[in-house]
């Protein structure tokens, strides 16, 4: 009991802690965006190969979708 009171006193939401946490969280944003765009585009290329169509529809649609998804997820994480 005494211990948990002691822990509460420590104030886990101190500005220093929050700063480091935010830094850690945003430091992954770039990798995250790259990952999303790469995976969706790669999927599009694969699907186009499977479909064998003349115009790479899947690549175009999925890569644009990837860019949209990457921006959406990055902004959503940023706001949180």
């Amino acid at each position, binding site marked *: 009991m005494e211990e948990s009171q002691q*822990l509460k006193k420590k104030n886990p939401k101190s500005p220093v802690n929050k700063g*480091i946490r935010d830094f*850690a969280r945003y*430091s*992954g944003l770039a990798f995250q965006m790259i990952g999303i765009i790469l*995976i969706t585009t790669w999927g599009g290329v694969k699907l186009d190969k499977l479909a064998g169509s003349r115009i790479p529809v899947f690549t175009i649609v999925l890569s644009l979708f990837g860019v*949209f998804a990457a921006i*959406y997820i990055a902004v*959503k994480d940023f706001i949180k």
Partner: protein
Amino acid sequence: MKTKKLIGFFFFLLLTGATISAFGQELQEKKESEEKFDASTFILEHIADSHEWHILTKENGDNVAIYLPVILYSKEKGLDVFSSKKLADGQEYLGYKLEEEGDLKDKIVSVNSEGIADEKNLPLDLSMTKAVMGMLFAAIIGLLLFISLARSYKKTGISHPKGIQSFLEPVILFVRDDIAIPNLGLHRYERYMPYLLTAFFFILINNLMGLIPVPPFGANVTGNIAVTFVLATFTFIITQFSGNKTYWKHIFAAPGVPFWLLPIMIPVEIIGLFSKPFALMIRLFANITAGHIIVLSLICLIFIFNSLSVAPVSIFFVIFMDFLELLVAFLQAYIFTLLSSLFIGMATPEHH
């Protein structure tokens, strides 16, 4: 204060001056010595996983290495266990060969009676490679540390820490007070402490072991993408299994999103689930690998210039980088644990 700043400034000048002159020389001499010493192959071989633990090459070209066990399984031949010495220098053994060139470089392939490699049916390679041995050593070190820690607590109870206790106790408390509790809350943090502490110390021990260049240390474990992939997968699985109703609702029926947008938003949210551990995996892998490459490149400078006079500069920078890597070792263990607990915490939001 002023003198400190002045010393710092001179130190900075010294560093930049040395780098500029070093780069100038490098450009000039690179062309000449390119044939003599291939730095990139040397570096890539050192950071990659391998079936043998290379120690040194003698002047006559003989290799001194620890040969690790090879464990192979293929449908036709069944299970085979033998020392990797049998495959050294391109030898064939039991119809297997270590490929030395091409896309399958450093992979074990099965060869037919004419010596042609079968590139389509690769045997399942379960060998104890360098990274596996490194991990086992890390596990042994971790066990020794923590069993002795537990014993000393059993003996003396909770009193002022002594010996190894005084080093490990603050670190464990740091993981609890600064990582787990702020992100997971006072009521739930205890459930995740075993995983967070295990991940933290596993990454930390492996990072630190990677900095020591002599076997059994020096395997680039946390700079191996398979290892970071598994670690990130653990975090991913734990996050999904601790996700509560609110978490899943935000994914499959995000509040405030019109229903006709849901077919687009649900895939986006699902991609978001996977992209977070993906970033976790890449970060640890990239940071550790980059550190190793920098240290190895600095050492390679001596061989690229082929002169002893570069050695002091190179060694000075290597020591500097090693200290930086010491910081990175702790920092990456901290960030991995912090983000893991953050993701788990985000999957279990308290009602608001």
